[in-house]
């Protein structure tokens, strides 16, 4: 068990070394996208919106953007990123000749996306806090947890997709039909109360919705304990199911 963890961490370190080589290029979409969204939607569109749930539109948008950052980071890393490592770079073939096994490879993916998710969310939350969008700065240290709780299920979805796609272009389909709906219908851009009841129930089942709930509670300092005791466990259940599924699929894929 300890050796599994040590080996997984050595793969995580490898990912970090590769990542930091091109740090600016790697980090820019994660920073730039939410920044421009804040500008265009928050400031531009926000001018037409008087109040959402008692918040300015910018205040409403901020927590969801932090969560979406974790989602995109995790999904892209384990879909395109993992797929390229697996098929084009053949990294795992060589790794598997060392004491590393498939379990260590999958575990390392989850540790890596959890860390990345935590870092990204913390960064975004900090920046948004500087703009006064984070009500109670004492809650900032909890933000990384949102990253972890969202990155695990979304990272699992990416890994599972990597095992099913026949070529790299098919991730487009996964993106359009899985990731986009999560992004648009999890309460990031508008309260789900706006939706017809049937659709609303479906949307409330999506994992990202629960992440958004956690984030909104922190940003707005609103019913933090009550919200977290409900939605964090739900995300953990999602993580457990999806992560287990991902372990199975990757094992089938890498073991011939």
């Amino acid at each position, binding site marked *: 068990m300890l*050796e599994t963890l040590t080996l997984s961490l050595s793969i995580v370190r490898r990912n970090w070394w*590769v990542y930091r080589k091109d740090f600016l290029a790697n980090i820019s979409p994660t920073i730039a996208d939410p920044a421009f969204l804040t500008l265009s939607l928050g400031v531009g569109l926000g001018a037409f919106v008087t109040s959402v749930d008692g918040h300015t539109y910018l205040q409403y948008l901020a927590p969801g953007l932090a969560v979406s950052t974790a989602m995109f980071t995790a999904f892209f890393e384990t879909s395109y990123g993992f797929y390229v490592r697996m098929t084009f770079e053949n990294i795992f073939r060589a790794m598997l*000749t060392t004491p590393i096994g498939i379990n260590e490879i999958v575990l390392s993916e989850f540790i890596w996306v959890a860390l990345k998710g935590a870092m990204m969310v913390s960064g975004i939350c900090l920046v948004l806090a500087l703009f006064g969008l984070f009500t109670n700065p004492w809650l900032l240290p909890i933000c990384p947890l949102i990253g972890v709780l969202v990155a695990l299920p979304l990272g699992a979805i990416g890994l599972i997709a990597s095992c099913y796609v026949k070529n790299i272009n098919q991730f487009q389909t996964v993106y359009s039909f899985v990731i986009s709906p999560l992004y648009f219908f999890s309460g990031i851009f508008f309260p789900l109360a706006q939706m017809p009841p049937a659709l609303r129930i479906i949307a409330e089942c999506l994992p990202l919705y629960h992440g958004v709930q956690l984030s909104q509670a922190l940003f707005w300092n609103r019913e933090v304990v009550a919200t977290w005791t409900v939605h964090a466990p739900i995300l953990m259940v999602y993580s457990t199911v999806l992560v287990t599924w991902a372990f199975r699929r990757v094992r089938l894929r890498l073991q011939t």
Partner: protein
Amino acid sequence: MSRNDVIRATDVRKSFGQLQAVNGVSFHVREGQCFGLLGPNGAGKSTLINMIYGTTLRGSGELTVFGLDPSHEARSIKRRIGVVTQDNALDESLTVRENMEIYAAFASVPRDQRAPRVQELLHYMNLGHKQNEPIASLSGGMKRRLVFVRALLNNPELIILDEPTTGLDPAVRHLLWGKVKQLKAEGKTVLLTTHYMHEAEVLCDQLLIMSAGQVIAGGSPEQLRAEHTPGYVAAFDDPPRLAALKAHAESHGLQASQDSSGLYIRAPHLEMLLRFQSENNCAAIQMRPSNLEDVFLQLTGQELTADA
């Protein structure tokens, strides 16, 4: 079978769907031996190697490495082996040293020994001056040398080389041969696949020739030569006359085979080939003792080239 067999395989099989990639292969590799797996593309060599360290699960048969079963003791086996995979699979964006340090961690080299071990191996393979260069800037030969020492980080007892020299220039090939011989001299066991018969002849004590998943011959290079193509070979390349020469040779009891590259006539004694030349008033483009390539061509009925 002896007690110091490093690898024992008995009737090992593996299929991918309908395809029987490895179809009833048996052999054993003794400690300190350099064992060569030969066979045309798709013969099943890499599949067999992947089964040795458990990345491919065997379909049936018995397989042990150091007496351990790769299907559930892969990690214990992998701690004691070093593998040069057919593809380099290096991290292109990282430097030479970073690639090695990462694998030193994978190979569980203790933290404080990693840096010195990496330096030692890079210098051993004359790559010390390249250690801070990114992989992308290395030549094919340098990458292969790096992959070779990457497999030595854990000081393995068994070294598996899957086509270590394919596509390399003769100087690099000779350098790697020297290193393999050195490892053998240190008592290491080597399992090697190659498409170069000369390489097998230079390095291997025992050979297994596979084709389409099955063993078609086995033994030391000398045994294989003595058994399948004893004596000498003359090669002729005079297209209009080849058919007549072939007929003449066969009528005199000489072995003859023809392929797109020419006509090959074999005889147990050199004088017989010389007599054949003068009787037919023709000149061989080459006359030499037979080698493993002849054995291979004879057995597989096809030409073996590294870049086929």
